[in-house]
């Protein structure tokens, strides 16, 4: 009966396509949050699959924190223009006047303005009622219990104690005015699945994920890029063979030492990796339950 059996990747793919279509049918103004990262690259591919041969019936939004890697901006422009998805960039207008940054302010304050603030304002300004995100349950403890349809109140906040039960593949999309949802089509994917899928589907991804010899600085156990925005000190920069498992803002995203410069090598590395992929994200470690706290406030 193997003929009528899907591989786990194709099964995950089918589940995600089902979710995309369900949301497109039941919501008025969906939007896809595109971060340039590997997960949102997969998300884009799945959205195209869901509506082919038609066009993806909603736009993508890139929340710019002004601290992203230069490679991310280039990749965003090249990738999106090649596939014809409408994408706009949104940046919280409050950030610039404050000169918000993670050195003169705390990381929480910086994330609060650029990331969470930018996201919430962007969604509100565009009247979005359903925002697709690439979060996965496996990523982090508080995400293990996240729903596929994650309800947010009129302030965009998440109440972990009051989530709707989700049974079978019946998603309850009914909502009252002002309520919105975040939708996570990749909920059941693992990091390994994402890479296997990128490999299988030959999805272009930003070069930062591949091991290269890069100019880096090492701070508090984190390996950071020697970008001016990290403010490297004299003599602090060194060449390191490394790659990024997860990408975000330059000052707060660490690299791992690795020689994995091809997709199969990355996959093999992951098969034996014991450290969580978000271990290199400084923001997750600042406070007990840090991610949950941010989620409640409206972050992913």
């Amino acid at each position, binding site marked *: *009966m*193997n003929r*009528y*059996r*899907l*591989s*786990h990747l*194709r*099964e995950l*793919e*089918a*589940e995600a*396509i*089902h979710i995309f*279509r*369900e949301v497109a*049918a039941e919501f008025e103004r969906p939007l896809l949050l595109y971060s340039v990262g590997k997960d949102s690259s997969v998300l884009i591919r799945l959205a*195209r*699959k*869901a*509506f*082919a*041969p*038609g*066009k993806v019936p909603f736009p993508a939004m890139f929340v710019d924190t002004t601290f992203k890697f230069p490679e991310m901006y280039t990749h965003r422009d090249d990738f999106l223009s090649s596939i014809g998805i409408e994408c706009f960039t949104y940046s919280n207008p409050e950030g610039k006047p404050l000169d918000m940054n993670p050195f003169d302010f705390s990381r929480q304050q910086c994330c609060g303005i650029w990331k969470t603030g930018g996201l919430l304002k962007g969604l509100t300004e565009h009247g979005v009622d359903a925002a697709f995100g690439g979060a996965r349950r*496996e990523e982090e*403890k*508080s*995400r*293990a*219990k996240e729903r596929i349809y994650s309800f947010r109140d009129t302030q965009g906040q998440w109440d*972990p104690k009051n989530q*709707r*039960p*989700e*049974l*079978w*593949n*019946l998603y*309850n999309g*009914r*909502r009252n005015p002002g309520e919105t949802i975040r939708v996570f089509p990749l*909920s*059941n994917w*693992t990091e*390994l*699945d994402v890479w*296997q899928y990128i*490999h*299988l589907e030959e999805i272009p991804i930003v070069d930062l994920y591949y091991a290269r010899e890069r100019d880096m600085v090492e701070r508090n156990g984190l390996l950071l890029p020697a970008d001016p925005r990290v403010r490297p000190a004299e003599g602090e920069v060194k060449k390191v063979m490394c790659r990024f498992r997860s990408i975000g803002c330059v000052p707060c995203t660490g690299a791992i030492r690795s020689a994995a410069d091809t997709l*199969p090598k990355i*996959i*093999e590395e992951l*098969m*034996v990796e*014991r450290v969580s992929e978000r271990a290199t994200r400084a923001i997750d470690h600042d406070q*007990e*339950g840090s991610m*949950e*706290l941010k989620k409640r406030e409206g972050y992913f």
Partner: protein
Amino acid sequence: MTRLVDQHQRANTLRFSTCGSVDDGKSTLIGRLLHDCKAAFQDQLAAAKRLTTNESVGAAGEEIDFSLLTDGLAAEREQGITIDVAYRYFSTPRRKFIIADTPGHEQYTRNMATGASTANLALVLIDARKGVLTQTRRHAFISSLLGIRHCVVCVNKMDLVDYSQEVFDGIVREFSDFATRLSVPDLEFVPLSALKGDNVVDPSARMPWYQGKPLLRLLEDVHTASDRNLIDLRYAVQYVIRPDLDYRGYAGSVASGIVRKGDEVMVLPSRKKTRVARIDTFDGEIEEAFPPMAVTLCLEDELDVSRGDMLVHPRNQPHVTRHFEAMVVWLGEQKLRVGGNYWLKHTTQSVRVKIESLRYVVDVNTLSRDREAEHLELNGIGRVVISAVRPLYVDAYRDNRSTGSFVLIDQLSNATLGAGMLIERQPEQELPSAIAEWHDAAGASAMGLIPDYERVETEERAAQLGQLPVTLWLTGLPASGKREVAHALDRLLFEAGFLSSVLDGRAVRGGLSHDLGFSPGDRAEHLRRVSTVAKTLNDAGLITIASFVSPTRVIRARAREQIGAERFVEVHVASPLEWCEARDRAETYSRARSGELLHVPGVNAPYEEPRTPAIVLRPDETGFEAAAEALMKVLRERGYLSS
């Protein structure tokens, strides 16, 4: 690409649910699985690359980092309990596993139901020191209610009972007794110690008396492909894709059945027929689609089709009905109101419904039914009658997890209040003849080659033989006397001048099914073959006397469908277990009791009695001849034999 990367890419998925409270070792077991599977990859990779490493990876007995598994939400940490379903993931090169990890307390029945709704297998955990607890029964019952067909009972903490076979056997007996009241076709038991790693990934040297597979091996091997319904095509239109005026595609997921390019399909509710012109995907056109594929169908004719409509094969239709009965698990804080109105979501349809009545409420601990109950409260399970403002296209949940399930939604708060599973109300004889379509699909071209005028019609054969073809399906426990009764009846028919043939389990297993074992998957395939032969004999005008244990209702319903309801007479050979056991020369029972044989109905697998057999025989009381006489009488009364 390395072999391992490639192999893992082709792995399939097993979703299973676990259930338990803090101290029963569930976290340890899950931790052990997550940990040792990573180690399994490491070992494989090291072996593949011929690395020499002194570092011992993942040896049994190694300390596990439980922090991986601490409960997720701050609220739960504060209260020291687990209140929600947590999903966890691990994989081996052969399979990816998704665990729906649910709390065990009674007040979390709804979480258990949520976790079970997408699971293929239930992993039931029992503390060897404590035996079968209320919580164990509850988890097993909810799993069976939610249609999970495979259940692995892990008897954990065997290290604390000195790895005693006696303790294990006692628990197996106790749980098996309980399981006979449930519908769990595939039941396995594993004695293990999650803490020490015994029988989790590798067989334990400390329990040489256990001949079965270690847990991970069971999980990797369990055969779930045949759980899916590949017969009844149900395709709910989800979204209409219309990029330009020339293209109109109906996007959806195949809930069950197989759809092929060129198939004739009927659109519900309009009942208009057309053909599938193409099956499109992003990656190009394909010839056929099966569950759970998400595709886009284009139809030959321009029909008015929209979201919520359903495409089916014209000869295999779901029930189109506004009224139905269902088992409902109540998830809401506010009680279910009889007479109340709710939104109901079923496939891609949302309709307003009214709760007409509450027939009974089930006590999840004792399985007793309270018919006086007036309310269904949070975590309650009850049978309700529902009517909808417009028709739904439904199947019984046991036949179809997708078209048989729904959720109830509050009209004000929009909260998801209930989860329902449709019950087949009609007698089985009135079921749509699902198998007819299946035969068409399989043999359409072959049948097309035979012009109608060359066929000998059933009526002609009946007239010549003086009998109508029928299959007497004798079901009952092993050694209950089915074979003896079958041959006695064969003799009576022969002497009366009729033509019949006996299909007997042992004979068929020695030939046609010699490649199959006794696991539920194999049993289903065995009976599919038997049913095909029975039908062939009937088609030739013969009376078939089939003698098979056929322990579950599902399996017999399939046989009935395949042979044809009008030709199928179900006979229950109901000799009591003790009598069967006493006369059992094949030692099936004693070997099952010793643990040597698994899946023996009545001992370590359930036997579900037929609900509405044509006749119940007791050869232990009447003898075989009298039982055969009684069957003759049934055949005459029902007009299968000319007088």
